[in-house]
């Protein structure tokens, strides 16, 4: 989720961006000044402008330094070097055009703009405004000092002044408005965090509900259809297992690290493979004939959490066949692709419409769909009343090379 910077980081980020933008303007202005001088020098060989061009070189170097290291020291260095450069630049430039030079001419304004756009060190609007104003004052002072020496005509530099005012206004707006708007940031950050935690809770609840459905509800139904007399041995064992697991252990705090958990070791992997087979065997115990085909070994590429989910979901699909499809045969096909494993459970029974079937709703939704979705997989169901049912379960798996390592 990207909902912006937290309030305490925003001023840093804004100052850095403002400094970078200022330095870009300064760079373009200095390059334009150099280009113009070079052209003027070329077209008027009689005047000597190249020393003025040289004056801008240290300023360019200082600009590079303050962009690279936005510290107090380099900011001050840029202002000092820039002031000296402008003084020298104006002195040489105006001396070449006695009587004709004016201090607000375009070519003299460009370095002044570059000095206003110092960017400057630190964070916070007031400091940035301070650097801009200081740059503006120093640039103008250097220009006036040089012009007074060469006798150039002094004029108020409207362009430089307007640029200074605009830069200050933009900074002031950001400073004033930030406080007004950023109060929303903590609430947004909290909403994003709450949403993610609520998503984790929903996944875990889905897993809990699926577990309850497969164990407690299944066994209660089995008891409800038992004849009078002693409890069957296998049912006794399952009830004991339920009580032990559900009440005694941390069955929701599992060993994987979320849906991408990849803690599978060699011995886990073999267990993984048997987990799927065990689910199918349990369905066979219930009286279903299961025809198994495809590449069973690819199940070993599933993380423990996904393997358990696929095995239990498959079992639930098989139980559904037995309970609702009206047939005693089902087919399970396992496919392994590069980065996913698919399991398809097919029967030729009664079929159903997922929306209309209230009885199946819980089993299919909880024990199959939500369980698989909670580990990042998908479930597709094709069923037409009278024409059988196919359920396709797809979950991400370790890619072949990773699994081999």
């Amino acid at each position, binding site marked *: *989720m*990207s*909902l*912006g*910077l*937290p309030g305490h980081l925003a001023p840093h*980020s804004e100052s*850095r*961006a403002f400094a*970078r*933008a200022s330095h870009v*303007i300064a760079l*373009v*202005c200095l390059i*334009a000044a150099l280009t*113009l001088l070079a*052209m003027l020098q070329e*077209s008027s060989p009689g005047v000597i402008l190249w020393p003025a061009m040289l004056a801008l070189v240290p300023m360019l170097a200082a600009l590079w330094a303050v962009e690279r290291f936005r510290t107090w020291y380099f900011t001050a260095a840029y202002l000092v070097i820039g002031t000296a450069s402008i003084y020298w630049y104006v002195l040489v430039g105006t001396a070449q055009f006695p009587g004709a030079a004016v201090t607000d001419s375009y070519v003299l304004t460009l370095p002044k703009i570059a000095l206003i756009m110092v960017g400057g060190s630190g964070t916070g609007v007031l400091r940035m405004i301070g650097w801009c104003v200081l740059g503006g004052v120093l640039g103008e002072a250097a220009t006036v000092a040089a012009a007074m020496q060469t006798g150039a005509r002094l004029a108020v530099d409207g362009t430089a002044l307007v640029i200074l005012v605009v830069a200050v*206004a933009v900074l002031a*707006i*950001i400073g004033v*408005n930030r406080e*007004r*708007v*950023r109060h*929303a940031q903590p*609430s*947004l950050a909290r909403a994003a965090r709450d*949403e*993610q935690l*609520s*998503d*984790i*809770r929903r996944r*875990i*609840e889905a897993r*809990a*509900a699926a577990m*309850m459905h497969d164990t407690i*509800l299944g066994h*209660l*139904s089995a*008891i*409800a259809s038992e004849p009078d*007399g*002693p409890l069957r041995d296998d049912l006794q064992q399952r*009830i*004991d297992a339920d*009580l032990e697991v*559900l*009440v005694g252990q*941390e069955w*929701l*705090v599992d060993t994987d690290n*979320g849906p991408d958990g990849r803690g599978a070791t060699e011995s886990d992997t073999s267990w993984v493979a048997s987990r799927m087979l065990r689910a199918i065997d349990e369905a066979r115990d219930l009286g279903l004939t299961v025809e198994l085909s495809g590449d069973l070994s690819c199940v070993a590429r599933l993380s423990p959490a996904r393997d358990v989910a696929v095995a239990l979901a498959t079992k639930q699909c098989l139980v559904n066949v037995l309970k609702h499809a009206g047939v005693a045969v089902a087919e399970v096909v396992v496919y392994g692709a590069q980065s996913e494993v698919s399991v398809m459970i097919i029967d030729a029974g009664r079929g159903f419409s997922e929306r209309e079937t209230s009885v199946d*709703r*819980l089993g299919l*939704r*909880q024990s199959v769909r*939500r369980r698989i979705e909670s580990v990042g997989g998908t479930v597709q169901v094709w069923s037409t009343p009278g024409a059988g049912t196919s359920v396709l379960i797809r979950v991400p798996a370790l890619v072949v090379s990773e699994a081999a390592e």
Partner: protein
Amino acid sequence: MSGRERTLQQRDPLAALVGMPISYLAAFGLPVYASVSTWINRDSIVHSELAAVAVLLVVLVGMALVWLSSPLRAPLTSRAFVLLLSLALLAFGVSAISMAENDAMVRDDWGGPVVGLLILALAPYRPAKELAVAGSLSAILVGVVALAQAENFVAVYPPIVFVVVATTPILALSFAAASFAHVLVRGLDRWNARARLAFSELADERGRFIARSVQQNSVTVLNQQVVPFLSELRARNEVTEDDRERARVIAEAVRESMVADVDRSWLDDLLDDAAASAAGTTASRVSLSDPAGLAQKMSTDERTALRALIIAAHGHPSFDPSDSGIEIVDRAGRCEVVMRASVAADDHAERSRLAPFVAVARVIFADLHVEHDSPALTLRFSYEQR
């Protein structure tokens, strides 16, 4: 984040909102600048009616900028950007024609700087690359015009000098805009990467805690009926008619509570929590009509934006939950939401408390439509099923 552009407005809607008054400044400043420059250049103007049209076009640019950059119409699309830029370039062209063959000085012409300032004002709304390309293309156009006018200028310099003078403001301002946007968006990307990492650590830690609490809830439910029944049955190891009946009744009760849990959405939970934490003022809850459970089909970003907005509304002093409601319906595969909130916000300060959250929602739900006839605040939007 897929489908969202590398613009500040779409990555950090609040930052764009911080910069919003710059649009007002530009809308005011650009026409003033054009008018004053036109007045200063009045001796160069041949067609005064065209000069007036050019200034009016800048007024139009300013108004369109304010309209299009409003958070209520976010995000500002590339089409809107092209429209604004075309208007500004048209103003530049008309202004140049108004001084046809009589323009004394290229540095006094306002056309180029207006284009550059417009691109700068659009920095929060468009990606860096687009801003830089727009500036470069505009500079080429302005440069060509300067070249064509070179003979008319008073100063006698090589024509390329005028091109440099004319294009410098556009290049400086548009490259500044591009680097401003680039630095901010890159900073956001880095922050997000760090935040994701920190969150996954938190999620690991909290996941275990949540799992225990969910398990505790389930065990509490089981302990009430299921565990006593099964333990008793195991002690006897005999099934009777009474047991069968009890098993059916308990199974039905567990099933019903599970169905109810399945049907509850995050939005139900959120509205319950919001009502509970706002208790004291009133115990009522915002109504929710979502018969098909479509709230579950929202993406994480959509849920977060809506969650923040709902919590912000609950925090508003005049919010009345009993007169507020959310309705979600399926219309041809898209989920349409109508959210009505009773918020008496008559003055600007009151409204601005919710504005940032509406701005964020506007970025997440592109078709968000807001009506506020105080106290009835109505938001309509739709989303794709996840």
